[in-house]
């Protein structure tokens, strides 16, 4: 394997992120958090600007920004005169706008907006690659540790709470893990398309899975396939890699909708 080859580095980065994003994406799908995930990803841009402005690393800035967004959402959620989806819509778009303005303030004219919005996977360095695999391994380990209580709280919050699971802590941990994955994935597909790496492979796997664990493993395989198909597709047709990966994932999702003779829908 040639790590000097930018394409190979990009492919490995994509595969690493797909492996981490897919199981977390299952929770996003199960908990109906897709739109919330989108708003979180949009706010990641503020985190990038914050990182540059106050001199902290990009993942730290992103986690900080996403954390603030999550708190704001909880506050807005309590306002009964605004529905949850309207509140999220306001947060998602205003945080994207704020991120773009803040970036231009701290970054000047030389900011490559397109790389932040749509990703720049071909610019992945050896160091980036190391970050992705180290952080990714830590994230997966953390997810494994909380898997049982998190799953229990996801299946039935009230029952889990009555049985002693700390459901609000579980929710906070999940948001933190998603924020970290967004920080990792934004270089790959950009803030606008990050959520798709979380939810599309998971939604595709839902069709075939009979247990939560099999859905997570299947989502990983589908995510990895999407990266491989997307990357080689972008090379072959000379189109942008980030969107190609998302389109490959979408293609697999559409395929999963087709009726299969020996595989009736699980539900």
């Amino acid at each position: 394997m040639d790590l000097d080859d930018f394409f190979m580095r990009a492919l490995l980065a994509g595969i690493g992120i797909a492996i981490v994003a897919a199981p977390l994406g299952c929770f996003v799908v199960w908990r109906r958090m897709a739109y919330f995930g989108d708003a979180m990803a949009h706010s990641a841009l503020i985190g990038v600007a914050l990182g540059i402005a106050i001199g902290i690393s990009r993942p730290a800035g992103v986690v900080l920004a996403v954390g603030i967004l999550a708190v704001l959402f909880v506050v807005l959620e309590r306002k009964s005169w605004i529905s949850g989806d309207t509140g999220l819509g306001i947060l998602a778009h205003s945080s994207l706008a704020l991120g773009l303005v803040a970036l231009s303030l701290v970054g000047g004219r030389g900011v490559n907006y397109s790389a932040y919005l749509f990703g720049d996977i071909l610019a992945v360095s050896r160091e980036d690659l190391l970050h992705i695999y180290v952080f990714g391994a830590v994230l997966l380990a953390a997810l494994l540790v909380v898997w049982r209580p998190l799953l229990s709280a996801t299946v039935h919050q009230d029952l889990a709470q009555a049985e002693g699971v700390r459901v609000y802590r579980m929710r906070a941990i999940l948001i933190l893990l998603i924020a970290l994955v967004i920080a990792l994935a934004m270089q790959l597909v950009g803030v606008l398309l990050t959520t798709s790496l979380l939810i599309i492979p998971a939604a595709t796997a839902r069709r075939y899975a009979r247990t939560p664990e099999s859905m997570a493993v299947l989502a990983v395989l589908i995510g990895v396939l999407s990266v491989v198909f997307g990357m080689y597709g972008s090379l072959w047709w000379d189109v942008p890699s980030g969107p190609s990966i998302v389109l490959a994932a979408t293609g697999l999702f559409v395929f999963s909708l087709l009726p299969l003779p020996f595989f009736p829908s699980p539900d």
Partner: protein
Amino acid sequence: MNLSKKDVLLGARGVSLRRGPSVLLDHVDIDVGAGEIVTIIGPNGAGKTSLLRVLLGLVKPTEGEVERRADVQIGYLPQQPRVDSLVPMSVSRFLAMGGSRSKNALVTASRECGVENRLEAPLRSLSGGEWQRVLLARALLTEPNLLVLDEPTSNVDFAGQISFYELLSELRNRRGCGILMVSHDLHMVMGSTDIVVCLDRHVCCSGSAEAIAHHPEYARLFAPATASMLAIYPHNHPAGHEKEHA
């Protein structure tokens, strides 16, 4: 209150709950004795679910105390009319998540609740009535001596309600567990309920279902029109008995 005669599993003593300026519960006293079936009824916003949450220890009361017998083991059925979980999962896995590991216990509990033939079915394929019975089976797996149910039949058709209440009453007789439940369906209060507690932030009145049906406070709370629609499901009652109240 008759503490000396009753073996109290779970009770509230002068429990009040306030959220800011609003009073959700006002000096509520309630007792559930061993093997006793207590039903809380009351209009919307009467604090029925709040009272359950206080009794379960999920919420701390602003005032008053919750009393639990030291060995009380509560099986809780939350208010959720339909399974809305998107997690792919079989019924047996869902039952095992409650903590019980033994396959034997799982089969026994599901047989008791009449869902033993649905063990391998995906959760989302269950009907409202089946889901209710699966929740009940999961509660039974904790070997409870007290079952707490929040509006157990809200999404079940009339026949389903009758059979669910029959099932509860069988469970009480077989396992001797106490049952505390909240009900908003005023049209049907279970005939085998020992005590009905009528709640409107405070306890308006309590007593046997028959006594409550004719209580002026009950009539005030639910208006004469609905009060006359109260049907006491005559389970375990001698034939003709309900005529006295018709």
